[in-house]
């Protein structure tokens, strides 16, 4: 593993790159209006309502970098609000990256909110989260992802600030890839199987301009920055994911976005593409 000062230096380079884009986006977003913190690509520190069930279907249509092929990933998910501070969700992975559309594994995600300070139209929350993932497809990239690519573990902390006009969320996590199932080894070596993920998300409510009832369609604009730094090689990637989110009847939601690689020294198969996510929530279900 690289010495800490080198890691910190490389980390600060990524952050500086992101800072500029961040500043622009913050200026654009910190104008009038409320804000939403139900981000498309990342999870905020807030918890689900107790007794609620969320049904989600995530579709990703990614362009492979080295050949003209489109990788389609389908990830259905069920999330449960177990207690005031704890939620659990399970995902199943399907994709056609291996030329045949097939089942590739699944994961369990746990989130525990440990800090919450509420005020009118404001809150600051922090939560710890963890993902345990299983994937039986071959390892084809240096990027480590618990969301449809690698078997392994991710543990992290997320902080979310809702500030009347702007919602900001940031997460830092440690990810460790193990060998994938079906005898698919993590081919880059044990030393290169660890990384640190850092994300920063901003969200803003565009419509309605005035809240009248629950039936109004909410339209939100999100901008998310995602990055990873491999702790051994020092290789990294930095992505941006803008998205549009619509909430119907204060119950169902659709996110449409585009994920784009800004910079990378890590080998990645298909980092750019469109994602469409559908979610329906049942309240007081159990």
């Amino acid at each position: 593993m690289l010495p800490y000062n080198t890691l910190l230096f490389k980390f600060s380079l990524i952050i500086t790159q992101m800072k500029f884009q961040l500043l622009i986006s913050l200026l654009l977003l910190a104008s009038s209006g409320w804000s939403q913190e139900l981000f498309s690509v990342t999870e905020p520190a807030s918890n689900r309502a107790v007794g609620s069930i969320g049904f989600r279907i995530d579709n990703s249509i990614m362009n492979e970098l080295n050949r003209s092929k489109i990788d389609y990933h389908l990830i259905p998910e069920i999330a449960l609000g177990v207690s005031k501070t704890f939620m659990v969700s399970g995902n199943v992975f399907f994709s056609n990256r291996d030329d045949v559309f097939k089942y590739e594994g699944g994961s369990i995600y746990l989130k525990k909110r440990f800090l919450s300070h509420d005020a009118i139209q404001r809150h600051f929350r922090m939560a710890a989260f963890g993902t345990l993932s299983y994937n039986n497809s071959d390892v084809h990239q240096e990027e480590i992802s618990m969301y449809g690519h690698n078997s392994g573990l991710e543990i992290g902390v997320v902080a979310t600030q809702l500030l009347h006009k702007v919602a900001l969320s940031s997460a830092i996590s440690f990810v460790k890839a193990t060998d994938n199932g079906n005898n698919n080894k993590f081919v880059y070596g044990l030393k290169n199987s660890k990384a640190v993920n850092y994300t920063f998300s901003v969200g803003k409510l565009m419509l309605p301009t005035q809240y009248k009832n629950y039936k109004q369609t909410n339209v939100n604009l999100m901008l998310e920055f995602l990055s990873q730094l491999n702790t051994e090689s020092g290789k990294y990637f930095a992505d941006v994911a803008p998205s549009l989110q619509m909430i119907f009847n204060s119950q169902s939601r659709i996110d449409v976005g585009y994920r784009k690689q800004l910079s990378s020294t890590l080998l990645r198969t298909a980092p750019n593409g469109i994602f469409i996510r559908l979610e329906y929530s049942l309240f007081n279900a159990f």
Partner: protein
Amino acid sequence: MIAQSRVNEYHKTTKMKIIFLFIAVALSLTTMAQITKVSLQASGLTCSMCSNAINKALNTLDFVEKVKPDIKTYTFEISFKPNSNVDFEKIKKKVEDAGFSVSGFIATINFENVTLQDNTPIKIGVNSLIFMHTKAQSLKGEVKVRLLDKGFISSKEYKTYGISSLLTERGIYHVTI
């Protein structure tokens, strides 16, 4: 034989007297006051889906008749079923389980001539109210009381009112008119 029947009658009357007394006491406690509605303000949210989660949660309480939400002001006007067991703690828990906090809690109570004495708690069902900063008086008709305890008030106001030194116990509420 006559003496025995007289003894039986005497026992019956005493029994009935005890029953009547018991009913009278029970009735006097319940007819003293009735909580008709609560105006609640929630904090920690801006979006309508968040407000809807609170709205749906409040509607699952068995003593709630109707909930009227105001999305703009994050307030919920909750009206209760007549003669039901209103529980303030359960209302607060529903908001917190939905993921948010209560920043304001005002209960409208219909009093049937209750004498308010310094620091003597008034029991209404499972809720005991201790009136703070209020002169000894007679409460009659519709009165609005505001809860000052932690979890029913914003943390900023909680520090201002300075009752943090007082013990908070489940079911006991410090209120002001």
